[in-house]
């Protein structure tokens, strides 16, 4: 019945497609931003999505997370279509993302940014927040502990009460990842995490992404301009140009792909 359950029995979890984009297309007026894109991610995979400026990489993220709806084609997460779902519903199913231009909650502290993201796992609603019985206190303490643990893992615990906008750039990026992890995703979408970082920071970021992926057993889809980062950590890379997937494969194969070189350097 449920394709996911069937997959579990026969092929094991690693073989389940977690995310399937099936000829997903999005059009804005006459412009085809993403055209018939097929992309599959399995559990625990680290896949890179690259392409020249304006190739539609961020649009793909917006399609997966429900910011845009596919004009045609389908997107399935764990076998169930996410087309027509709102972003918050898709996040609740286990997709979390970071943003190309950092979007932290500016007026909240570092700690509160993380706590806010635990919102979807609350068992209690508005009445509990108003009545504040023992159940409320227990849950608030749980959220606090979990948020503190996450901050500790990513070495942000000493900045707990700082204003998030006052953090250095790299820490803000890290905080965005922490916040995304607080929603307990199965798939993490990282939108240009290395943008604006120096080589040392990029090296740290690569370690961080790998560490995150292993520690939380995530599938990661990474949009990145920096080839060193993408080639360094991705198991598989898909290349997008003008909304069309022009190549997909292991980093070595992509590096030598004629079409890819053309797209980046011209003929």
């Amino acid at each position: 019945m449920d394709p996911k359950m069937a997959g579990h029995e026969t092929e094991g979890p690693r073989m389940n497609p977690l995310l399937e984009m099936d000829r997903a297309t999005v059009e804005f007026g006459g412009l085809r931003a993403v055209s018939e894109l097929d992309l599959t991610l399995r559990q625990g995979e680290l896949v890179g999505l690259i392409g020249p400026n304006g190739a539609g990489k961020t649009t793909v993220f917006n399609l997966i997370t429900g910011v845009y709806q596919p004009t045609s084609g389908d997107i399935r997460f764990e076998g169930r279509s996410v087309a027509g779902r709102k972003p918050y519903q898709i996040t609740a199913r286990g997709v979390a993302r970071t943003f190309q231009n950092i979007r932290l909650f500016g007026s909240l502290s570092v700690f509160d940014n993380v706590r806010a993201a635990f919102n979807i796992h609350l068992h209690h609603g508005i009445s509990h927040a108003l009545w504040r019985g023992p159940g409320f206190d227990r849950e608030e303490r749980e959220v606090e502990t979990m948020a503190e643990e996450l901050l500790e893992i990513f070495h942000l615990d000493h900045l707990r009460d700082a204003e998030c906008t006052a953090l250095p750039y790299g820490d803000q990026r890290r905080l965005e990842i922490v916040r995304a992890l607080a929603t307990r995703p199965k798939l993490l979408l990282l939108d240009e995490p290395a943008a604006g970082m120096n080589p040392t920071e990029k090296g740290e970021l690569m370690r961080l992404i790998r560490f995150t992926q292993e520690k939380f057993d995530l599938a990661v889809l990474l949009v990145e301009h920096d080839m060193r980062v993408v080639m360094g950590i991705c198991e598989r890379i898909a290349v997008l140009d003008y909304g069309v997937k022009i190549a997909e494969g292991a980093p070595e194969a992509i590096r030598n792909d004629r079409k890819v070189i053309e797209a980046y350097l011209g003929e």
Partner: protein
Amino acid sequence: MNRPKTCFLLFVALIAALAPFQSAINPYYFNILISIGINIILGVGLNLVTGYTGQFSLGHAGFMAVGAYLSGSVTVFLAPRWLPALGGGAAGETALFLLALIAGGLGAGLAGLAVGVPSLRLKGDYLAIVTLGFAEIIRVILQNMEIVGGPRGLSIPIRPTGLFGTYLAAALTVYVVVLLVHSTYGRGFLTVRDDEIAAEAMGINSTKYKVIAFVVAAFFAGIAGGLYAHFIQFITPEGFGYLKSVDIVVIVILGGMGNTPGVILAAILLTILPEGLRVMSGWEFLPDAVRGIVKNRMILYSLLLIILMLTRPQGLFSSGGKWTQKWRAMKRRGRA
């Protein structure tokens, strides 16, 4: 960790203890005290929408009107029939008043839901225009409803609004808003204000939060309207025009967006300020020139508002104002 609850109960006990002495208060000061209470309810309620959730609403007086007229109608039309059934006398009157207030609050809350669900997908100025339009619609409807007096207004025979009722409602508003915002659940309001797209990406249903904020604020505006109607005893649609909405917005902005103590202080200050100027214009010992200025109190009031906004653009309790910074720089120079 039940500090808010303790504070709330202590405050209720305090006003309950003070309430018996309200008849000893000079009627003029009593009037001001009640107005302060009502403005606190309106300001703190709107602060949940504008301050904490970041949705600019210019129609708060509309919800107040719904509450005022609904609760007023309950008293006017049901009192002759229900008062004997409720046992008559003071107890019956209080029970009917409570019923009227709750009816006003629920009615306004429903109006909030009806307006909020379709209009909260709009942002910024557009939402402001829609809410402004809503308040005007309410006003025009009331003007054309003969059963509640139309443009002539509705007079309410009893005056049960007292210090206890008003400040209980005010404390309840503050309690609800503060508790909502200081919880993991309620942090959703702040995330919607800070970045709606990021909030949605973190699994927060921004529309739901906006509607909740709108309905809660409308409910309390309805209660405030009911208290007002049963205090002033005569309401007209004109009293709930868009200037009233602007007054409430000014309280929120001056108090500081999302700063409840600031909004309470602003509600107190903005209620007292025009009255204080009125009192000053009667002081014989002031030179005529000063009294002449003070007599134009509405101009002075506006001027004071402008000065306050220039010096404290982030609200009364902020520290980031231009003049505050200049003052600090001066002090630093003085020390060096």
